[in-house]
């Protein structure tokens, strides 16, 4: 194993205060079971899962509650044993209603009888491994929730030579990945090797930001004696974004609109690798994850191992409740997370944190005009011109915005973080991207019909 610094530094990026100190040394605690678990059928990107249980059914932990709604989808499993008390429509973290299986735990937490540890993974075919991953409902746990098996099945002829494990965790406040690396380095490492075996990747890179020395130490201990590399990244947001990470590690730029496999690379989050370990070696589907509950408005910030479906309100209550009225409650990190209107939503496979920000730390957007300071241009990791794009979109010139590559925006929020005029730049970009996608779809259907 060799450890080195990242060789490439992409342009742009910002340096928000990391605020990880509140939780980065706190061991992960088990979150007790809630009275009711709300298991949403929308836990991932792609088609929602279809519920296969009905009201009154008794379920065991790990039993399938919803089956995958298509190829780009993933099944959802019962997080504990108990009774299905309702199948309802509840708002997700994004605020849109979705089917939800409500489970009243019986407190015994019995595993499904069908669960069994798999055979030695080293002897298994790639196809069989991927099948087990599909069955375990594993999705990207860094935040986007892209079903992992899709990524692991590159089309014929595409080779992936570099596998990058993302332990950057560049979002402020969050420490879920960091604690996982410190506490379960060996599981992650095994998961990584399984992924590598599936892909047959020549090069294996573990990427961690330099503000997590304990994670670097734990991972390098686990990787000792292998041919993998450990790349220490300079702390910068959004270093953990897929395209930026690939560039920082390999110097390759993922082409616009393309997937990482276009440059022969693949990025997996450390949490995903741990989940793959659980699925293949332990035979456990994905039913829990680590959630960092933090922010100035939480009494005792903690890293919690919480069941999928645990209401956010219970997490906050377990951490001692709020110390006052928060200015904002965010699922995920403060740069890209989703602001919550209430604490009704529940933990999903992609919930890496719950951050309760005080009023004074919350960004207040305004309608002030751009003063052309150029900070957003310097900050944009995609090297777009958010100032011009923002003005174009305000003038409803979506075509112009498309010409200036608004579709390449990764919505990392660096521009709006820097903007001294507090312009809602990311909101503008999202609006334009949605509008352009709609137009493109319309055009495509018109061409077909």
């Amino acid at each position, binding site marked *: 194993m060799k450890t080195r610094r990242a060789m490439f530094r992409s*342009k742009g990026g910002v340096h*928000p205060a990391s605020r990880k100190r509140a939780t980065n040394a706190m061991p992960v605690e*088990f979150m*007790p*079971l809630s*009275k009711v678990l709300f298991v949403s059928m929308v836990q991932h990107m792609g088609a929602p899962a279809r519920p296969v249980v009905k009201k009154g059914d008794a379920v065991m932990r790990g039993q399938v509650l919803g089956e995958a709604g298509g190829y780009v989808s993933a099944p959802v499993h019962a997080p504990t044993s108990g009774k299905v008390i309702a199948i309802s429509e509840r708002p997700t973290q994004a605020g849109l209603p979705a089917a939800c299986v409500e489970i009243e*735990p019986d*407190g015994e937490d019995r595993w499904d009888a069908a669960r069994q540890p798999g055979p030695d993974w080293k002897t298994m075919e790639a196809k069989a491994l991927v099948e087990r991953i599909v069955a375990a409902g594993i999705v990207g746990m860094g935040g986007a929730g892209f079903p992992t098996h899709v990524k692991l099945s590159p089309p014929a002829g595409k080779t992936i030579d570099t596998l990058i494990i993302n332990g950057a965790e560049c979002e402020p406040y969050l420490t879920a990945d960091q604690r996982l690396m410190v506490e379960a380095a060996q599981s992650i490492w095994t998961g990584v090797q399984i992924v590598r075996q599936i892909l047959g990747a020549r090069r294996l890179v573990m990427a961690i930001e330099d503000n997590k020395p304990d994670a670097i130490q734990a991972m390098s201990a686990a990787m000792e004696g292998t041919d993998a590399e450990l790349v220490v990244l300079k702390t910068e947001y959004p270093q953990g974004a897929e*395209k930026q990470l690939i560039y920082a590690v390999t110097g390759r*730029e993922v082409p*616009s*609109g393309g997937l990482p496999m276009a440059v022969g690379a693949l990025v997996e989050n450390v949490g995903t690798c741990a989940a793959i370990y659980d699925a293949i070696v332990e035979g456990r589907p994905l039913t829990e994850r680590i959630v960092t509950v933090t922010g100035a408005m939480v009494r005792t910030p903690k890293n919690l191992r919480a069941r999928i479906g645990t*209401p956010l*309100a*219970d997490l*906050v*209550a*377990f951490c001692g*409740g*709020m110390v006052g*009225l*928060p200015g*904002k*409650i965010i699922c995920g990190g403060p*740069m890209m*997370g989703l*602001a*919550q*209107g*209430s*604490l*009704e939503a529940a933990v999903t496979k992609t919930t890496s944190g719950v951050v309760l*920000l005080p009023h004074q730390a919350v*960004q207040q*957007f305004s309608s*002030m*005009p*751009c*003063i*052309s*300071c*150029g900070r957003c*241009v*310097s900050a944009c990791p*995609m*090297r777009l*011109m958010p*100032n011009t794009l923002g003005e174009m979109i305000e003038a409803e010139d979506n075509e112009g915005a498309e*010409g*200036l*590559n608004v579709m*390449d925006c990764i919505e990392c*929020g660096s521009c*709006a*973080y820097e903007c*001294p*005029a507090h312009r*809602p730049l*990311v*909101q503008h970009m999202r609006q334009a991207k949605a509008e352009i996608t709609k137009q493109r779809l319309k055009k495509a259907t018109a061409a077909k019909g």
Partner: protein
Amino acid sequence: MNEPVEKTLPIAAKEPTWLASSSPHAHSGDSVRKIMLTVIIALMPALAAAGIFFGWDALRLTGVCIVSCVAAEAATRKLMRRDKGIGDLSAVVTGLLLAFNLPPALPSWMAVVGSIVAIVIAKQFYGGLGYNPFNPALIGRVLLLISFPVAMTTWGPWQILSPAAGVDAITTATPLGLVKTTLGTGQPLPFVFDGDTILQFFMGAKNGCIGEVSVLALLIGGMYLLWRRCISWQVPVFYIGTVAVFATILWLADPTHNYNPLFHILTGGLVLGAFFMATDMVTTPVTKTGLMFFGIGCGVLTMVIRKWGGYPEGVSFAILIMNAFTPLLNRMTRPRVFGHGQKKKQA
């Protein structure tokens, strides 16, 4: 661990009392008002120097300009029903910069005219802060210069520390004006540019607009701005650098008809312009490359005007002309978007 916990939420979950707006939820904490405040602080050393060298006149002009700029801003905004008030402090900055570009003996009413033009015509008519294509303070100054050329070029007497032999040590012209007159008519240079004069010019005991004389005070303010990340280094470095290179070439080519490059840097409004006017965010490019070209353009134009133009000083005109190039520079120096192979030529 298997005991379900009680829901103990301190507030009713159904009624959100917090914001649910778009990401990012965090912010760097900087604001337009803070930037303007930083610029005002950075201008304070120059104001102090102006007070030392020009006394009451400097304070009178500064006061008049700030008050009339803020009043004009408030009145126009009210008349135009624009929501934001004068809280962003941009009018104060405009007033300060305009005052710094006026000769000390200018009548107060002319300063008021300049302020009104700067705020109403150069700024609010275009849509207010952020939309003005030209630097408002410079528009105010240039309008005054063209409208009242006599008042804008009348200076008090000052003494040269090292006059050349046979030349009067007391003069009522600016250093640049002196050099333009004498070099233009082939007469001997009015002063020896030695250590004493260099120090004199650097400290600011010379004729000029009230805010431009003390290079020392301006450099202190400029460094503060750079340290606070309010300006990028490209403009001052390339602006002053281009002037230095241009002046050196001329000087080496013909030392009898051109003056020392150091003289060009220490006189006139160059340092004030390079650190405070050509760095105005609204009217300059947003990309670093664009700012570099902006600085070079300003430097070339300044020297062309100083050498061949009708006016002895060209900083204001140079910056205003380059302001007009800002949209073009922004377009030309658009960065290559991540993941796009070649630089895309946009029509």
